[in-house]
């Protein structure tokens, strides 16, 4: 199941909350302004296998499509 870029942005608290999205081979490493706006249940509903949050760094595990999803997210949030 491919995760949905729009839904992941929403789950991370919206485009304005996202500082950076960096893909690794299995996950998106994201940095957000306000971690309290991150909705882990929404991210899982968007296709994430898991979510790990430490401070303002939120890792969204999406599987090997991480590169594609990260570029989709970057296209959307500009």
């Amino acid at each position, binding site marked *: 199941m491919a995760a949905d870029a729009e839904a992941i942005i929403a789950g991370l608290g919206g485009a304005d909350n996202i500082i950076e999205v960096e893909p*690794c*081979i*299995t996950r998106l490493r994201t940095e957000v302004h306000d971690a309290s706006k991150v909705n882990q249940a929404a991210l899982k509903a968007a296709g994430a296998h*898991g979510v790990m949050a430490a401070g303002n760094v939120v*890792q969204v*595990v999406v*599987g*090997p499509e991480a590169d594609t999803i990260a570029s989709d997210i970057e296209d959307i949030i500009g």
Partner: protein
Amino acid sequence: MTTVLAPVAGAAIGLSAVPDPVFSQAMVGPGTAIDPRREPVEALAPIDGTIVKLHPHAYVVVGDDGRGVLVHLGIDTVQLKGEGFRLLAAEGDRVRAGQPVVAWDPAVVEAGGRSPVCPVVALDAVRDAVGGIAEGSVNAGDTLFEWS
């Protein structure tokens, strides 16, 4: 049945021993991990197929049946941005199981403060689909597990 080969020599330690929850909790699939010998090596393709993802520190080979196997060379090694890794194949290449894909040195990764442990994962497989998992010492190219 897909026979997955050990990409590197070392000790098969199981995914639960990997210091990264993505692997230890099998979030991307079941498999095992190899604690590699600390010597410069060429990491091998685990199955016949096409290299669909190739990073210096990790790669995915997908077989003709659509099954993908991920090999991750060390933990948090994305942060090295390719330093210490040399690509021996290209994304999109067809490879045979046992063909070299990336040259690297686990000792250098460890000296940099990172775990050199290599997860080998049957992507999106159900847990019960993976069996015959090797334990203990393995040589590169040995059968690591079977994906039914």
